[in-house]
């Protein structure tokens, strides 16, 4: 009797143990199945972890020799609009059909914040698309990223100019490959409006300022400026500063500034800041659709330009996507929008660029296969074709990969690529190269404070210098 009681209780416990233990496994699986890849812990995709922890390496290598079909590669990145997601999906469609590798992309606005947490926790996607080379360097030095394999290196060297590959090289080893490029040194304007008022496109910075004064005298507002961008408020201002820094002080000083070899509150930097802020603060100079520059979302500068509320707007090549549907670009019609190159100060023609870089976190053959594909012109062409067909013209995407079919791009976009590939001096967006505490932090916030008049330029620069990580 006594024994049977114990037995029965033990049986119950045993059964319960079995079931709960089994169910705990079940929960892991179902959360891993969820499509939401950027949600912290659930990102712990069982496939990845198991491949790392438990599967003997021999098995996967054996699998590679056969083929990679049936495998899945996950990618995360900051581009989260429907257009970008569709473009990226299209860029992998043929690849998946050929190789059988499924590619899952998840874009998140908070990519930059999340990826650090995920890297610490070991729950990143296989590949991450970084908008900031500075972050790539940090991650590479912390040992999170894998150096690209020889095959990928060969492919990217063949497909991209050395100037672009340079951004993925950390301490002599290449970790990341360029996948998308942006041209920042552009001023958007309406040739029709310029013609009607008798303005000429300025060639020099002084010419631009003189033109602006003429416009004010004529009762026009020269610039649309707005630097609000949610959590990234202020980046438009940093772009102006960077473009002028490159022009007024030259690429050497620019590099020294980025590398913190000259302090952030150096008089040269202050001069550039004052140049920008003084220009913006001149009476009648700026139309800000949100009432003040700091309160105007950067995307809300497109419509005023179309409506002739202002004559010019300095913004990167991707800005095409911000104009209303049906806007004509550089086709000679009255309302068409065109760009001119941000004028030079000293007569040179330095280019401020930006872009995204892909780097791998996990060492699996299919991951490298995907990386290799991302360097190819075929990837860029597929994405360009898909986005262009959705947008009906200008795609918002740009790639400086060599050997692309240029007919996929509109003439305007072709001119962008022309500038990017032929420029003698190309510099990456400085705020993307600086440590995140500055480049994604105080450079933006203190810049905003200075633009808004909350702080003097000197105060703002001192605060940024103080925040530079030691």
């Amino acid at each position, binding site marked *: 009797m006594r024994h049977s009681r114990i037995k029965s209780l033990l049986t119950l416990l*045993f059964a319960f143990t079995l*079931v709960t233990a089994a169910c705990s496994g079940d929960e892991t699986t179902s959360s891993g199945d969820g499509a939401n890849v950027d949600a912290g812990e659930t990102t712990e995709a069982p496939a990845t972890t198991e491949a790392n*922890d438990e599967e003997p390496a021999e098995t996967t290598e054996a699998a590679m020799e056969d083929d990679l079909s049936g495998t899945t590669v996950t990618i995360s990145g900051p581009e989260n609009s429907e257009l970008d997601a569709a473009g990226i999906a299209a860029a992998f469609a043929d690849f998946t059909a050929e190789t059988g590798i499924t590619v899952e992309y998840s874009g998140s606005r908070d990519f930059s914040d999340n990826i650090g947490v995920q890297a610490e926790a070991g729950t990143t996607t296989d590949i991450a698309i970084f908008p900031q080379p500075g972050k790539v360097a940090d991650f590479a030095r912390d040992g999170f990223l894998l150096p690209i394999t020889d095959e990928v290196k060969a492919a990217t060297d063949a497909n991209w100019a050395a100037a672009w590959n340079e951004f993925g090289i950390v301490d002599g080893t290449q970790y990341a490959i360029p996948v998308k490029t942006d041209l920042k040194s552009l001023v958007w304007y309406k040739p029709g409006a310029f013609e009607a008022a008798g303005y000429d496109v300025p060639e020099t910075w002084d010419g631009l300022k003189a033109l602006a004064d003429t416009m004010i005298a004529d009762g026009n507002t020269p610039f649309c400026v707005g630097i609000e961008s949610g959590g990234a408020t202020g980046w438009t201002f940093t772009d102006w500063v960077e473009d002028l820094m490159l022009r007024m002080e030259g690429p050497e000083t620019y590099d020294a500034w980025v590398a913190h070899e000259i302090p952030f509150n150096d008089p040269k930097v202050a001069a550039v800041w004052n140049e920008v802020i003084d220009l913006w603060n001149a009476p009648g100079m700026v139309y800000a659709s949100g009432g*003040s520059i700091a309160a105007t979302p950067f995307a809300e500068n497109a419509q005023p330009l179309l409506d002739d509320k202002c004559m010019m707007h300095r913004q990167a090549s991707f800005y095409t996507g911000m104009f209303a549907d049906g806007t004509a670009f550089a086709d000679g019609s009255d309302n068409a929008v065109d760009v001119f190159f941000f004028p030079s100060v000293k007569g040179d023609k330095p280019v401020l660029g930006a872009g995204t870089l892909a780097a791998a976190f996990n060492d699996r053959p299919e991951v490298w296969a995907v990386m290799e594909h991302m360097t190819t012109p075929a990837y860029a062409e597929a994405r360009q074709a898909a986005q262009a067909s959705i947008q009906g013209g200008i795609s918002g995407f740009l790639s400086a990969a060599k050997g692309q079919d240029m007919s996929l791009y509109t003439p305007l976009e072709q001119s962008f690529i022309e500038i990017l590939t032929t420029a003698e001096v190309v510099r990456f967006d400085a705020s993307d190269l600086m440590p995140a*505490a500055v480049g994604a932090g105080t450079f933006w916030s203190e810049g905003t404070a200075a633009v808004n008049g909350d702080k003097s330029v000197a105060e703002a620069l001192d605060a940024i210098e103080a925040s530079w990580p030691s």
Partner: protein
Amino acid sequence: MELLESVGSVCVTVLIAIVLGSLVGTLITQPMTFLQDKVRQRSMLVLAGVVAVPTFIWLVGSDTDAIIASDEGSKVADTVWGVTIALGASALLFISFNMMFNQVTKSLARFSALLGATIGFVVFGLLDGNRLIQWVGPRDSLANNAHSWVNHGPWTLLIFSLIIAGGVGALAGIIVGTFRERVQSTLLVFIPISLFLGFIWGLFYAERIPVDTTITLLWTPLVGAIVVGVVGYVLSQLDQPSRLIAGTAAGAGIGLMIGGLLKTVYLPRISIIPLLTWGIGLAIVGAVLSRLRKRPPIGGALLGGAIGWLIGAFVATKVGGPRFEAMINTAIPLALVGARFSVRDHPGIVEKAKIDLKSRAWIFLMPAMSFITLGLTVPLIRTIYLSMLRTGRDPETKQRVTEFVLLDNYKDIFTNPNSFNVGNWRNIFTSAPFEIGSSLIMMGLVAAFLLGRRSGNGFRGSSIILPITSLVLLAGAFYEFRLLRGSTSVDEAALAQDVAAAAGAPSWRYLYLFAFLVGGLALLVLTFSGGRVAGQDGLNLDLGGGHLGAIIFGTFLVGMAMFASLRGTLLNSLWWVFAVTTISTSMGLAIAALADRAKFENLAKSIIFMPMAISFVGAGIIWRFMFIARPDGDTQTGVMNYVWLKLADFSQGDGVGRLLTIIILVGLLASLVWLAFSSYQHDAGSLAYGSIVVAFFVGWLLWRLLDHRLGGTGVQVTEQILEGRTIQFLSQGLPYNNLWLMVVLIWIQTGFAMVIFSAAIKAVPTEFLEAASVDGANESSIFWRIVVPQIVPTIGVVVTTLIVTVLKVFDIVKVMTNGNFGSQVIANEMWFQAFTAGNQGLGSALAVVLFISVVPVVYFNVKRIQEGA
């Protein structure tokens, strides 16, 4: 993967089988007396198990696709199953634990075994579930561990495991109690179990058993349950001193096992200083706590030492030691735990009854408690530790360097002017809120004094309020004086603002100087003369009437003046707490009191409560749209600016409407003054004060209207350009732009305060109110003197809850300004530092500061709840 999925689907079936079986069994057997046959009850449970296990085994082996289709529709099914499982598992747990606690009085041995099994199951399940231990590891991770004996090949390992396990078992068995017990425990319990474990372990390393997550998932908790369960059983059979020895040995054995199984990446080093510091430190803490609870200190010391050792070994040191040290680091604390639980004698009948009675509450409490411990205590310790680190990059190698900086991060917080800046404290005294606020306090105090003198009751004695107010007013007078002298020690910008606000009328300044001086001196005299002035045995301040409102509002304004001048993230968060808590509480109280017993009460309350349903992020976005400003001259899309500019148009028009408005306003002002005067005569203090306060507002409105500046900013008076100008609510007028952010939270939280207050007001006994009415008290007196004192505890609850909510505010700031324009708060700064800027140490330090500032409030709240109970 497939197997895991199949297990997932299988466990659904099995659980349902067990749950249904046991539920049906229990439901049939338990309530019906004629079926209260214990054999029948148990046989039902056994039946469930017997059905479940073979089903489980069968299902594991069967084709999984047939069980759950992989299409989208199965997600719905999954959810339904998930809910069923949760409900069923909870029910099963409850029943099982109840049955377990039934055993306390029936058979202690069985109870100990079951309790041990449960603890083992949970502990090992947690270790395994968090991937801290690893029964099998890839070769290379073992190979990395060059010093490890694990590296000597599978069979050496197997034999070694057997020796260790058997040795521990034999040792534990041999030193146990009497001869019979020795034989019994050695032969029957320890050695077989230890050998079994060693064998399984060795086999896994030898890869004789197919490596599969499912199996480790299943059997880790199971092994833990068996091991600890057996230990529990044995301990309950032994008497002192063998019980103590066996307990310690068993604890050490389990510790060795865990240490041996720890994943390579978690292996800690033995570093003496943290081990001793934490171990001894917490042992002393434990001893003191035990002593305070009038228990033998040894128990607390042992447990404290164990926890301290674990912290010293796993939290405070770097990982990367050899397995040997890890095993010591786990064996010692668990031996201490074992000793702790063996040091006590077997419970007597009374204690058994106590356990039986009291433990059932723990069935529900335990899961909650463990979640809180895991979710709060562990992260807290970790965060405190992180806050003492600073991560940087070596300028040469660019490698990440982490150094221990103790309190430097905290020092940074309090020395960085962005987070803590009290440099402009002088501006407090020259700001408009201070002038208005202190005037209101003076008026209120004078009224309190007059009323107190007349009625002879109230707040007796010269309180601390008087000297403080007096000093503050005198300081205000001093700075007014310096301002009028044109002294530049005051912040230039604030000076310019004040001069603009005074609109070229320095006579106002002289008025304030005079008022401050007289008020301050008068209160100073009152302070020191006390009763003599009052002519009675103490100074009577009647602080129960409507003028209390004036004093409170005045204090609020003075506080606003303070926070508007003292800037920085920390102080800004405090400003949020101060302003939002005060305004939400008072508005909630006012609405609850005014709507009480009104016809439209429910409708009004529902509408005001509605914002509670909106998330902070949603509210932030909504209000951003309301605050939007468009360039002057464009159509305004933001509601606030639209209304503002319409008012401006109205103010500048010359039509009949404007004339009419002026007449109405003058009339209103006159009647308010008359109302105040007659109320004073009829001893209705609060009505008088209410009228005066409203009269001030109406007067201001009238003045602005006449001055053509309603809707204008007033800076263009000289040029007589009077067109309305938009307001950049969020980005201009620093620091008062913060108020527009706070409005959002106030909008949300007022409903919360109102609902609670409404319930409290309705709970005030009507007898009190009726008695007061009979005595001739008016509504206002009833509210201030009867209702408010009755609901003071509720006010405490609302205020503390609001303070905690407001301290944590993050979403609103993140969405609306992201901390730009001087609107940063602690939580958002913490996010930025930890996740964007990569300063984890500073971010953690901010988190700790936030935590520490919440603790007193929570403590106060808990204490209040305990007092209530």
